[in-house]
């Protein structure tokens, strides 16, 4: 990252950097953060349209919080598969992981199929399985329909 870019978004002492977000998806991640009450008090900085060697352009989000909730991470893996998460301690990167969608998506989504029983019963737990990697497809355990990630990202159960 060049010095002028660093000027745009402040370094954080402690927290998390969500990096390598495909440009345009930063806003989706921001909405996701809003949907998770545990993060509502955290200081968030957002950088859009950075130049990236890997993606050409990328978005970047910094969250000043002690931890990221499990459910938020699972949702995040579905909204921006392949996102990099860096844990920052004392201004330095302490840990770095690349987040991939889970094989089993346990009650994180509602089913896009309007005829699916899970959309008509109260208190039903949904379940999707990753059935294909390229391109990524998930199958609803109940109605057995297959969905691309793009069909699922606005079906998050927050």
């Amino acid at each position, binding site marked *: 990252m060049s010095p002028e870019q660093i000027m745009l978004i402040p370094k954080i002492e402690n927290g998390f950097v969500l990096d390598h977000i495909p440009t345009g998806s930063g806003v989706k991640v921001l909405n996701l953060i809003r949907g998770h009450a545990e993060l509502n008090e955290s200081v968030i900085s957002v950088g859009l349209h950075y130049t990236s060697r890997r993606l050409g352009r990328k978005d970047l989000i910094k969250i000043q919080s002690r931890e990221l909730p499990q459910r938020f991470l699972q949702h995040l893996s579905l909204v921006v598969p392949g996102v990099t998460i860096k844990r920052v301690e004392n201004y330095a990167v302490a840990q770095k992981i690349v987040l991939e969608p889970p094989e089993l998506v346990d009650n994180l989504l509602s089913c896009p199929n309007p005829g699916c*029983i899970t959309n008509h019963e109260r208190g039903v737990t949904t379940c999707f399985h990753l059935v294909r990697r390229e391109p990524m497809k998930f199958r609803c355990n109940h109605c057995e329909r297959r969905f691309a990630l793009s069909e699922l990202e606005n079906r998050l159960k927050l």
Partner: protein
Amino acid sequence: MKRDLISIEDLNEKQLRDYIEFGRKIDGMSHEACRQILAGRILGVLFYEPSTRTRLSFEAAMLRMGGQIIGFSEALNTSVAKGESLADTIRTVERYCDAIVIRHPREGAARLAAEISRVPVINAGDGANQHPTQTLLDLYTLQNLFGRVDGLRVALVGDLKYSRTVHSLFHALARFKDVRFRFVSPETLRMPEYVIEATEGSAAEIAETTNFEEAIADSDVIYMTRIQRERFPDPLEYEKVKDAYRLDRSALKHAPSHLKVLHPLPRVNEIATDVDSTQHAAYFPQAGYGMVMRQGILAHLLGGKL
């Protein structure tokens, strides 16, 4: 562990063959012996939408094995109509019976019922999704007609886009050895790519055609489905294709003598009645095999002695 029958996709080749075998065992038994298999057991038949044929077939299967039936054949006058959830209905009914057969207009309803129920659940159709006992009876019919399922040349004809019966049958047959498929349909009702994709290339051979005649001359099995008028936004389009995929006696002139015609029934006019008396018609025997297959399914899931 409790056994359920929810989806053909849950069954591997061995399990499919096992089910066929359960049917054969039932078929080889005397009426007397058969009546002992599920004596004193009760089947809950929950039909949230009417399907007389399937329901009668299940009920006959249960009665022939000495069992009894409770249930409803449409949801109109039940607690369901008053807004009871499926989950609550299952939690109640499972206390009255030893297994549940469910038909429901929502996709995934049988799976949900099985997750809740402590007694075995059999899916008798969940919306546009699955109808696994239909597929098993189709396989059982083929086994009876040809003495085998492996190596058959099967033409699936008509509405291949929306017919779940055909999708399930294709998926099941693709797990057997060397079954060769011919998909015969109008351009607008072709077998969807996602249905083919789901077999992960396990089908030995697939040919797609709009030419029904050629398929008749070169197949062991013609599996007919109905082309529904509602599927066509343009009624003229429907008029054009409906006759092209209609089977009558003259169309069977060049059929190999062993060719069998199957149909999940009810038929409307896609098979002319003059086909009924030919050696090729197998759709009524198919219904009979259906009951035997359902006996085998019930006996297996309820732990009856075969």
